[in-house]
């Protein structure tokens, strides 16, 4: 490699295009420095620094939404900046802020090191941002691994809790397996794309998405490419937790600390979907293969997620399995996007309302849970409406939105997906989705019932007091967060404003 080549490569490095990721990295390091520099009694302010710093970054990002690097490929084809990417950047930053707020609440109940938690969350968020903007399989894999390794640590963060450790181990093994499957798929694609025997465009070793797509278009019926595509899709399916790659979901979600569960459920899943949308475009010449694979996954995911959630009494497992079914609805949107690009706006809108509703529910869960974070049963919610009406209200709004009950935002998201599915002629998937929605009403409503309707309980034996969980008062940052999530979930149901138009006209 000569100097000239390096110079041309370096000339393409637009560091300005990465300002959110770079600033997040600096912020993460700053937290560690602050922990060393500040005296111990001031350590309580460090999470505040993390949250305020990210809020400032969020404002900067929103102001620069149409920044100068749109639709450009930078870093020698490693990254591509699009408006969808900008949307997902905002999405992940929002996720990260919310996880940090939940982290403050949850960590206050544990004897654990604090600062590293926020550090890792911020680094993982930055990696997610890079992931959804990657335009090259190498960048894609590196970013994905950064995310996954961060999660290995986060999932087993409450290391004194055996369930958390178990979850960490499961996530490690499953994650490693899925990464190797993904890598195998990438290697197969690399092999065929670089093979001089086939018609190629980018030259051997061109692994950026545009070249792969062109190669696939030129070689429409390549067996190795097909295997590679299926393996890559399987690797992504692990991340978004669709059947048959969902087996890790309930155990890991239950064992992980609640803020991390929220991060997994929203951030990791959304990252998977944003990547899937990009990959679906890359693999579009092989539609006849991709569509049946994804459709089969969607049907199985919706049915399995909803039916399995019916029997759960642990709310973390319940929300995990219901999250599986949401992945199924989102898959329908991705499939519909092949024939109707408007479907993508439905996917993004759905992700956003899913974020709002999920964090509302996880926020309530964080407050209701006791010191044992993994044991959160439905019965702990009894009489929540009487003891903490605010939390009960937020819970009802969040669950209602997840269930897709009008007038909440989740309903608009579901209608947009249904409309897209009908337009694309996916009648079977639409039917399955509707059956899924009806089933889901049972467990979402059952949870609301547990919180609102007073039920008869076994009287405590004489001399014993009823073992009720101590209710934790809601601090003001959490209150602000929960009420804005609930209000946003209601408001987006009535008035979508320019958001949907922006998403459609993107």
């Amino acid at each position, binding site marked *: 490699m000569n100097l000239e080549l390096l110079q041309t490569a370096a000339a393409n490095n637009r560091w300005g295009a990465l300002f959110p990721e770079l600033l997040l990295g600096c912020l993460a390091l700053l937290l560690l420095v602050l922990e060393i520099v500040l005296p111990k009694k001031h350590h309580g302010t460090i999470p505040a620094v993390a949250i305020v710093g990210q809020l400032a970054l969020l404002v900067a990002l929103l102001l620069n939404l149409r920044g100068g690097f749109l639709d450009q490929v930078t870093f020698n084809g490693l990254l591509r900046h699009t408006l969808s990417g900008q949307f997902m950047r905002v999405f992940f930053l929002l996720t990260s802020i919310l996880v940090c707020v939940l982290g403050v609440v949850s960590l206050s109940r544990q004897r654990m090191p604090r600062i590293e938690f926020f550090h890792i969350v911020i680094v993982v968020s930055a990696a997610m941002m890079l992931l959804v903007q990657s335009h090259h399989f190498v960048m894609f894999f590196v970013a994905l691994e950064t995310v996954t390794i961060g999660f290995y640590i986060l999932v087993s963060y409450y290391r004194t809790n055996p369930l958390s450790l178990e979850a960490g181990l499961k996530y490690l093994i499953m994650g490693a397996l899925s990464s190797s499957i993904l890598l195998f798929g990438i290697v197969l694609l690399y092999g065929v794309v670089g093979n001089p025997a086939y018609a190629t465009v980018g030259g051997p070793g061109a692994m950026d998405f545009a070249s792969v797509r062109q190669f696939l278009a030129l070689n429409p019926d390549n067996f190795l490419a097909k295997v590679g595509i299926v393996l890559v899709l399987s690797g992504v399916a692990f991340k978004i937790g669709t059947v048959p790659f969902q087996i890790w979901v309930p155990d890991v979600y239950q064992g992980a600390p609640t803020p991390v569960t929220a991060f997994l459920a929203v951030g990791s899943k959304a990252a998977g979907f944003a990547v899937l949308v990009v990959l679906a475009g890359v693999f579009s010449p092989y539609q006849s293969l991709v569509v049946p694979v994804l459709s089969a996954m969607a049907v199985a995911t919706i049915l399995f997620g909803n039916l399995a959630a019916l029997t759960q009494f642990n709310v973390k497992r319940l929300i995990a399995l219901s999250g599986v079914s949401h992945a199924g609805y989102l898959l329908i949107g991705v499939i519909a996007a092949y024939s109707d690009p*408007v479907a993508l706006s439905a996917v993004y809108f759905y992700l956003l309302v899913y974020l709002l509703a999920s964090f509302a529910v996880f926020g309530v869960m964080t407050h209701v849970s006791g010191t044992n974070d993994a044991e959160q049963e439905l019965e702990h919610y009894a009489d929540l409406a009487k003891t903490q009406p605010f939390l009960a*209200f937020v819970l009802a709004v969040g669950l*209602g939105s997840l269930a897709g*009950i*009008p*007038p909440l935002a989740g*309903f*608009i998201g579901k*209608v*947009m997906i*249904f*409309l897209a599915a*009908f*337009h694309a002629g996916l009648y079977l998937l*639409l039917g399955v989705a*509707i059956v899924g*929605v*009806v089933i889901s*009403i*049972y467990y979402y*409503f*059952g949870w609301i*019932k547990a919180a*609102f*309707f007073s*039920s008869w309980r076994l009287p405590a034996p004489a001399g014993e007091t009823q073992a009720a969980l101590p209710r934790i008062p809601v601090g003001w940052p959490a209150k602000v967060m929960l009420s804005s999530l609930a209000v946003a979930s209601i408001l987006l149901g*009535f*008035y*979508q*404003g*320019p*958001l*949907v*138009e922006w998403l*459609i*006209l993107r």
Partner: protein
Amino acid sequence: MTMHVDLLLLSIATPLAVALAIFAGLPKRYSVFLSYFGFGVPAVIAVWLWTQFPSAPGDTYVFMSSYNLGLGLLGINLKLGLNGISMPLFGMAGLVGFAAGLYAIQSGAERLKIYLALLLVMQAGLMGVFASVDVFFFYFFHELALIPTFIMVGIWGGRDRSYAAMKLTIYLTVGAMLSLVGLIVIYYQSGVESFDLITLRQEMAIRPLSDAVQTYGFGFLLFGFGILVSLWPFHTWAPLGYGAAPSSTAMLHAGVLKKFGLYGLVQVGLPLLPAGAAHWAPLLAWLALGNIVIIGLVTLAQRDLKQMIGYASVMHIGYGFLGVACVSILGVGGVVLFMVAHGFTVALLFLLATSIHHRTGTFDLDEMGGLVKKAPVMAAFFLTAILASIGLPGPGLLNFWGELTIFMAIYAHSEWMVVPAVLGVVISAIYGLRAVARVFYGPPSEVFARYQEGREVTDLRWSERLPAIVLLVSLIALGVWPRVITTPLNSALAAIYPETPALSSGVATK
């Protein structure tokens, strides 16, 4: 006209705003005070608009206004307006809502603030359902009104409330989902990708959908709406739910909200998909007869007053479906008349049933008796309401007009069906009059006599009388002067229901 434009939005926004204020933590005193406004403003607007309504609107909507709430690109706009079909129902919704609100305010329920707030949300949804020209918002407002029902049944409900709330939720979700699919079918198959009913009607008038599409589209609408309106045999949620629901919720749901499905068939299903309607009409007629005869017999066997009224309302809905099954202008006109009458009557019956319960401590018909001596005014109200629900001319003049029109339409459709339909009137006379006799006449039962010891059983208080009067006066006034409904209705139906072959063949097939 500009003034009217905002009135429709105001009738939806006022109850919603009051409800939000209460949820946000308004003190109880102000909450109750503001609730009068929340229930009163829609009623005043409804009556005022009714007086301003043109007598021959044709197929135009009046008081139109349109707002883009963010889904405009998908062909979804909040478009409000009234035509000859929706005006009477909009008026009925305002008046029944006002009565239900008054009754709730005086009920002294536990956690009254939240109860009122939920009822106000329901009221906003009801006004929205009948004011919507956009089919999406028609559905949206229905769901908005439905959600509080589940919560109210679960929290303030009576016996079996938890089970009833769950059953209600699941049944009605299934119904709502099926009808949503039906509406999406219309949205895409029309080719205009719009939920605007006016656009859809114009498009379908030029290019009707193919028979196959109409058939399955109407099928979705029929069974979706059918479940929501307790079409036999999908009715089992209804008596259970009404039995458990608090009185004002039952008044609003059985009286007004349940008209959504029939209204949807009349306003959306039949005009847009006439061939589909003709295809399903024979089956629908049989199911409707199931409502009338089978549920009628089941009603006869009820011992619980509230359950009996619940079953009776399910039974009478059968007449509405029978009118739809005639697929003729006469039948549809009868259905609209009948819906208005049924709304007032059922609401009044549920109100009185609860007032009776407050005085006897039971809903069991065998444990009452002789109440007329203590509460003559209540007895008069109840007897009138029962006579109206049977459809006797007199107090139930409007019910009578509705049923008479439907019977005439049925006769034109197929003669023999009049026999089971009229049999239904006989059945309702038996259980209705028997209930009057058991509650108010004869010697008090032993249980009731014991219950009365040491208590003062009073007549209807004025706070209970007022909502009852609102309902009864509206019913009688409209029965004496039904032209305010029929003239605009006729003009609208004549314009909306063109004499297409499908419609006339629906009349011809016997």
